[in-house]
């Protein structure tokens, strides 16, 4: 080192590097701190929040009511309906200053919430920061085939990762299911039992030791495509995990 100038430069460099490292570390901590967890455990635990609802909209309302935010959402569904969020709202022709702008997330929640959009809206409003969607094998193969021609798909042993505007989404079959690194919100639709038995789902959840603080089972009473048999199998699944009809207690350990 030559002289005080060099020493000062090195000191500035170190200080700046430390500041940058602190910003990276702080950003990471900030992100993690924004996740809302409640007491969690296996889906069979009576200590976690478990509820049956009639419609997907009610499931959404339940997540909202629980104040959930920044979570991974693991869904078991029998269908995957493609939606086009870009056409949810028309750009008004009347565009005068000051512009009549709106909050996109709130508008979606108030005006566009339905059985096809509720998962997307859960991501926009911040309930979920990522979706892991388990679908029947037949639908998965169809979706994977379509995904091969898209620019945002990647395939792995855990299914197909198909982002939407940067949102992480993974589609998979039941046998792709792996242990998530953190407690997840679990959502099971009656339609999932069109091609799966309650035992198969229960075994899969036990095999990968899913930890959750919120299990929502949806009867899908507003979907004519769902049969009474599928709802009966959902009820059987509920019984198998020892679920009451109403919302469960929220006690138990907190994630580290």
């Amino acid at each position, binding site marked *: 080192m030559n*002289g005080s100038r*060099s020493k000062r430069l090195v000191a500035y460099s170190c200080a700046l590097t430390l*500041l*940058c490292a602190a910003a*990276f570390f702080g950003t990471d901590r900030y992100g993690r701190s924004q996740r809302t967890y409640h007491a969690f455990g296996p889906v069979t635990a009576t200590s976690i929040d478990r509820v049956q609802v009639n419609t997907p909209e009610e499931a959404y309302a339940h997540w909202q009511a629980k104040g959930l935010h920044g979570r991974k959402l693991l869904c078991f569904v029998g269908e995957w309906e493609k939606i086009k969020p870009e056409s949810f709202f028309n*750009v*008004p*022709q009347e565009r005068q200053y000051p512009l009549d702008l709106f909050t*996109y997330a709130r508008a979606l929640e108030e005006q566009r919430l339905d059985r096809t959009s509720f998962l997307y809206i859960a991501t926009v409003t911040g309930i979920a920061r990522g979706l892991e969607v388990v679908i029947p094998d037949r639908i998965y193969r169809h979706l994977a085939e379509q995904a091969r021609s898209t620019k945002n798909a990647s395939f792995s042993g855990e299914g197909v990762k198909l982002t939407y505007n*940067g949102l992480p989404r993974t589609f998979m079959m039941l046998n792709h299911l792996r242990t998530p690194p953190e407690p997840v919100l679990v959502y099971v639709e009656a339609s999932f039992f069109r091609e799966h038995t309650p035992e198969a789902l229960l075994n899969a959840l036990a095999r990968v030791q899913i930890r959750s603080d919120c299990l929502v089972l949806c009867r899908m009473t507003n979907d004519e495509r769902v049969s009474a048999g599928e709802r009966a199998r959902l009820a059987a699944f509920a019984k198998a995990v020892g679920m009451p009809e109403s919302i469960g207690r929220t006690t138990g350990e907190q994630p580290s």
Partner: protein
Amino acid sequence: MKGFALRVALLTLAGLFLRTLWLHSQPVSVDDYMVGITAINYMESGQLGPTMWNHPDLRNILVYWAMQLFGSGLVGLKGWNVLFGTLSIPLLAAITRRLLASERVALTAALLWTIEPLAIDFSRQAINDIYIAFFPLLGIYLTLKYLDQYRPAWLVLAGFAWGCGLASKWSAVFPLTVTGCYLLWQSRHAVVDAAGSAVARTAYYVATLVFLPCTIYLLTFLPWFGRGYDLTEWPALQHSMYLETKLHTGYHETIVGDHLASQWFIKPVMFRDLYFTAGSEEHSVNGKMTLLLAVADPLVWLLVLPAVAMLVYRGIGRRSSGELVTAALFLLAYLPLVITRRPIWVNTALSVLPFALMAVAYLVWNILEGKPAGKRWAAAYLSLVAVTSAALYLPVIGKGELLPLVGPTLLERFVNEPHYSKEPYLTHPRQERPGP
């Protein structure tokens, strides 16, 4: 020096005038409107989009702050663009003077930028293409200030500017690379007592021009992290953005218009926005039609490639780093766009144009200076460019119909072209939002 500053100030004022004339009455485009919606969505929900989700998010942050302060009027939505578009004029003048060592060349480059149709167009729109001219120019200017005095603070400021550039569009990485190399090259023989040892300087350059911009870039994603994401999930987002940017062909419909960067300086090109707002118009049942038409001035654009060739030739011949770095700034900003396989629309040229205009200004004065009546020829050329730009100005600001001869039929020529429109799905929501 004083004369130079005064002339630059006058050019800046002229630039401000051209960038704001009748701006309040320029109908709000779909892009302008969606910039406001996207800024709110990003800052209040941390969600990217709904429009242009694959670009970094500095624009969302700045527009949101401006709207918090000034409301969703003209200043809130487009204030930054007018400011950046205007301030890039003195920055270009200062950089050109420093690198090409000529006040005439600097003033000429600044003049060309002041009246450049594309620069005017995107200083008057809310989308962030003008940012990719302004922040790199600011970063280069501050780096050059550091090289003049070796005061460390300049490089910290430069790091902030480069970070903002990267957080506007990734294309800022190209001029940053050239500037970093120039910095290393220029400071290789710096006096240790004034600038510090080579090791200390290099460490400082890495901290200010690599770590700091990366950190600024990261921090612009704070609203996204507020959705619960951690650092391990961030690279996947960047990868998604990269894939969309790499393969982008339009968000809803494939964008029309000139889209081959390789043709920019070989044939006349243009960028046009066609949109409709409420009101009646004889040309369309969709409402009042607005056409913003930025036609590249062929008197300037067609000189760019010869001008860069001259910069390289003279730079090598004279062993002049100023000429060579100017050429490198142009080439490294431009060539990646040329070899990119997806369509590149002319608005992206704003990341290249400042350096292209520096080259053209250099060409003009290197050919004419010292020649008999050289100044007159230069004046004649610049007058011709100014007259052409005056004719091109009205279409840029959406008043093309006022042009004599072509004006009355201009809109009719474009009315049947594809344009951005969507079938009404639901009327847009009415919400009470807090005022400024």
